[in-house]
């Protein structure tokens, strides 16, 4: 899934909107890493989630009452 590369000014703007103003010397490095993270995570958009809910807290005791073997 290709995506246009995040530019340094875009990274600066996004970070500021997220409440994390970055000094100018950070913009390029953060843009590069954020773009890489995006390329990894973006594949999740391929999934058909159906009605799958979020899994905010995993509770093994509720999921596997017969977990003991």
């Amino acid at each position, binding site marked *: 899934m290709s995506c246009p590369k995040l530019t340094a000014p875009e990274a600066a703007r996004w970070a500021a909107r997220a409440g994390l103003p970055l000094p100018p010397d950070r913009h390029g490095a*953060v843009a590069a890493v954020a773009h890489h*993270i995006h390329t990894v*995570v973006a594949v*999740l*958009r391929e*999934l058909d989630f159906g009605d799958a809910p979020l899994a905010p807290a995993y509770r093994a*005791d509720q999921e*596997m009452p017969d*977990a003991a*073997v």
Partner: protein
Amino acid sequence: MQPYELSLTRAADAIRNRQLSPVELVDSVLQRVEQVEPRLHAYVTVTAEHARRAAREAEKDIAAGRHRGPLHGIPMGLKDLIDVADMATSAGSRVRAGHRAQADSTVAARLTAAGAVLIGKTHTHEFAYGLITPQTRNAWDADRVAGGSSGGSAVAVAAGTATFALGTDTGGSIRVPAALNGVVGLKPTYGLVPRHGVTSLSWSLDHVGPLTRTVEDAALVLSALAGHDPRDPASLTAPATDYRPGADADLTGLRVGVPRSYYFDHVEPEVEAAVRRAVDRLAGLGARLVDVEIPMTRYIQATQWGLMVPEATTYHEGTLRTVPDLYQADVRVLLEAGALMPAGDYLRAQRSRTLMRQEWARVFQEVDLIAAPTVPVTAVRAGQETITWADGTVEAVSDAYVRLSAPANITGIPSLSIPVGHDTAGLPIGMQLLGRPLGEDVLLRAGHAYQQTHPAPARTLTPTA
């Protein structure tokens, strides 16, 4: 054999039988610290005086008939993300300069109550956000990485400067250094061991667990750690259990899944060969090998990152604004970049986790455990950043080390890493056993059976001296 060389189980037996005193054991471990620590750097802080005092008290209590159990008088190291009252929890970071924990974490309190003796706090990759632990040297080869993020704990156990240690595991941080240093590492089921008082990397992926020399040792420590604590919202209410495996090494009837996909892709041939030999050994003990397909492999890294990256950034939000220069460069840029991830990506990762848990539960209807390599490569040289595979694929070292560990963090299932040999360079190789939620007893039984019957037991202590 010197006392520092004893496994926890053997040391505990010797103490119980009055053949060894906690003072002798702690003194031996502290001498070992003096001998090897200048080269290995497993510890941030060594609490020698405290340890000697605690050992004397343990000796007195045991002599008076107040023996608290197998951890009484046993020297331990705690990863420096774990709060111990009145000590700094440095988390491997300058951000924590001047820190002082006000109270014990749940796990520190439980181990103290069980009589374990703190030798010191062990090094972690900064805030557990990395797989190297650059402060620490590999116990088998000082030019190699210790692995991480619980690198100090693994090296201390491997080198004999702690009889056991605790680590944390968000994407392999117990199992990776355990494998790279030839010790046992257990990531328990999510929520089994409370995390109250343990610095978080990613709440929905974080686990606390033991690093030990034997599987039986890991069972003893887990028995002391597990149990509900309402101060950790993920803490399970499973009843207290004695996890110590029985002596029976017969695995007849146990169905061991051998992955057809993923876990043996892009794995060093020597690692694959050692793990397959160990799997055959399980079959030799009566286990039935069953080929299994690992589900949703294309989405494992995406799900791990989609959860971990924004959660880590959120934890550090305040200090990232106020003291960003105090973070190491590798951690700082990851935390900053995490602020740019849209909520939609995080939510998709949470839904993907739901699907993945369902799919893994289906796999565990066919098998009782899955056996696989812990890491695809042994310890790389310090400074090496990438691995080039035979097909020309280039992979970051950190990605390679997380790759085979992440599924157990995402799904919350337990995973036990055990040493299964060495490569031709003499570096340890680890195999992980993955089980159903709360299936620690099955993993420990199989791992213990393997270790009991291994035809040529590997040295559990490194040759460092």
